[in-house]
């Protein structure tokens, strides 16, 4: 992203790609004469995240958001591209040299019920990074630090004696956050940290995350499909579709004037109290199978603006006025101006795409 060139970004993804091999075993391929099959979960992602800011990745289920999270923290190895963290390319790093960076990059997980080992006491869960990284030298010091972390996330130091099942979802997520910040990381990858929580609890956890960001100077890669949450949290937004970034830019720009047809479609799905009984544009179709993506622009089967060029040639990301980048032929050619566009799919359903563009 070109918007934060004043200072070197803390994290930069450069052409990051991940291909999963889904081929059947060799024997089956020989006997059943099946070919190799692969899935491009992430395809040439370019993202810069400035220090102390929040970059949000949004998109539908299955678009590769979580794969990006796992690539960045090193749970998956990248197939191509670079992940630069504070000047060092993590993808080239040998496992032994990764140790120092593990401490600086941590993750908050989606499911607070699966991310805490049910057989471990909370104090041991939070102390695991402390022990593994050798941060505390004595039992007493470790105890004090665990107590401090628990209080930092709004729990009581005595809660350390309990087991995870004695806590609610929101409290568990706080424990998860306490564990993630225990090694004093600079960069936190948050993979849908609130999607498993009640709305009322969501806001508490999000406020906590924002407070911690101010207090500890954290940088977030925030992955979500909830646009309201993203609006609240993020400085920059990237919209993913089928493994590719279709639009990225400053959050206020993306929310006020989305340009890519897919982004507009997403924004249109956000309920708005002022909308009343407006005739809402239906979201047509669903994400295509990523194993056999459509030729050309991957959004073309669902895009009301698609023409023959879109069906043949994949668009490249281009800088736009207003500081965002958009990968769309229609935007580039200025075909996206009409207020309403007749839909080519569906039974003459009409799609309003111009909300907010005025």
């Amino acid at each position, binding site marked *: 992203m070109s918007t934060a060139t004043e200072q070197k970004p803390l994290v930069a993804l450069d052409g990051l790609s991940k291909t999963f091999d889904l081929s059947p075993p060799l024997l089956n391929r020989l006997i059943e004469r099946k070919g190799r099959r692969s899935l491009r979960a992430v395809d040439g992602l370019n993202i810069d995240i400035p220090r102390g800011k929040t970059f949000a990745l949004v998109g539908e289920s299955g678009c590769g958001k979580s794969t990006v999270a*796992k690539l960045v*923290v*090193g*749970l998956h190895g990248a197939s191509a591209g670079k992940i630069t963290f504070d000047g060092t390319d993590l993808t080239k790093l040998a496992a032994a040299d*990764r*140790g120092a960076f*593990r401490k600086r990059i*941590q*993750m908050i*997980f*989606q*499911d607070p019920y*699966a*991310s*805490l*080992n*049910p*057989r*471990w006491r909370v104090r041991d*869960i939070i102390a*695991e*990074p402390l022990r*593994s*990284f050798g941060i505390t030298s004595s039992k007493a010091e470790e105890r004090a630090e665990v107590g401090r972390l628990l209080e930092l996330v709004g729990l009581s130091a*005595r*809660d350390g*004696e*309990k087991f995870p099942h004695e806590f609610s979802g929101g409290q568990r997520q706080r424990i*998860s956050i306490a*564990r993630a910040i225990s*090694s004093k990381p600079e960069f936190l990858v948050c993979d849908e940290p609130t999607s498993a929580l009640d709305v009322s609890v969501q806001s508490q956890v999000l406020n906590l995350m924002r407070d911690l960001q101010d207090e500890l100077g954290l940088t977030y890669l925030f992955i979500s499909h909830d646009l309201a949450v993203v609006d609240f949290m993020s400085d920059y937004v990237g919209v993913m579709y089928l493994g590719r970034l279709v639009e990225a830019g400053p959050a206020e720009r993306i929310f006020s004037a989305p340009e890519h047809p897919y982004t507009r479609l997403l924004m249109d799905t956000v309920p708005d109290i002022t909308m009343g009984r407006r005739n809402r544009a239906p979201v047509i179709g669903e994400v295509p199978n990523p194993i056999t993506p459509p030729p050309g622009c991957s959004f073309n089967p669902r895009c009301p603006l698609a023409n023959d060029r879109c069906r043949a040639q994949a668009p490249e990301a281009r800088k736009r006025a207003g500081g965002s980048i958009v990968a769309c032929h229609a935007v580039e050619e200025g075909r996206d101006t009409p207020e309403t566009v007749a839909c080519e799919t569906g039974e003459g359903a009409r799609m309003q795409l111009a909300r907010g563009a005025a």
Partner: protein
Amino acid sequence: MSLEAFPQSRLAAIIESDLFYKFRTSWITVGAFVVTLVIVLAAVLAPWIAPHDPFDVSTLSLWDSELPPVWAEGGDPRFLLGTDNQGRDVFSAILYGSRISLAVGFVSVAFAMVIGIVIGLVSGYFGGAIDAFFMRIADVMLSFPTILVALLVSGIVRGALPREMHDSAALIVLVFAITVTTWVQYARTVRSSTMVERSREYVYAAQLVGRKPFAILFSHILPNVMGPVLVIATINLAMAILIEATLSFLGVGMPPTNPSLGTLIRVGNEYLFSGVWWVVIFPSLTLVALVLAVNLLGDWLRDALNPKLR
């Protein structure tokens, strides 16, 4: 009770647990537990509570041979359950015999459990070629009947060892044969649970802080896969005792000089039709009671640990 959280003692936690509730509300389970406890205690304490040492030849007298139990006509109050053809006290022989049976059962279950758990954890966690290798071995093991493999193993060992070593090696051969045939169950169960746990987020969290695979396997995954293993272990204890009895009954297990329950049954079986029924009936009843009780305990554990039946 105050709302404030207070640290519970372990004993109180056990008494309040679902497991214990299921236990004390089922008289069958309590009965099974008492029977198991009595037999295990009697076996462990055999040298102190047995009225005779059945293997001390100097104390045996052929005058005492084939005496019926005390309550039958011609019974001798010295011999509670009668004597066999050598004048050995059947009650004492059962105590010592249960000792051997239980020892074989516990030791082979422990070995099979350790081997099965380690192979299951490694297979499930690393997958790929390692998994394929171990699981094909497991498939092969499963395609043979347990008794057949046990017979084969003891046959090979007997063929390889000189005759005078057979009796002393019998215990080891039995444990080995039972272990070899029963580890597969543990390995498969642990493997499938491990595959589920491996992709849970707490495992990712541990990987992210740089814990090594084996540290993760034993500190994180193992405690979460132990439930089903304990159930299998309990039921397999009964099975191991039965396999041991079967092998001994077939003559490839414990020798008559150091008999297990199975050996006692085999020896006694030869006298059954001459009217000396007590030599075979009492060891058989002990075996049935023990296996049934342990099996019932296993059933209780399985139901109590099964979240679907809660």
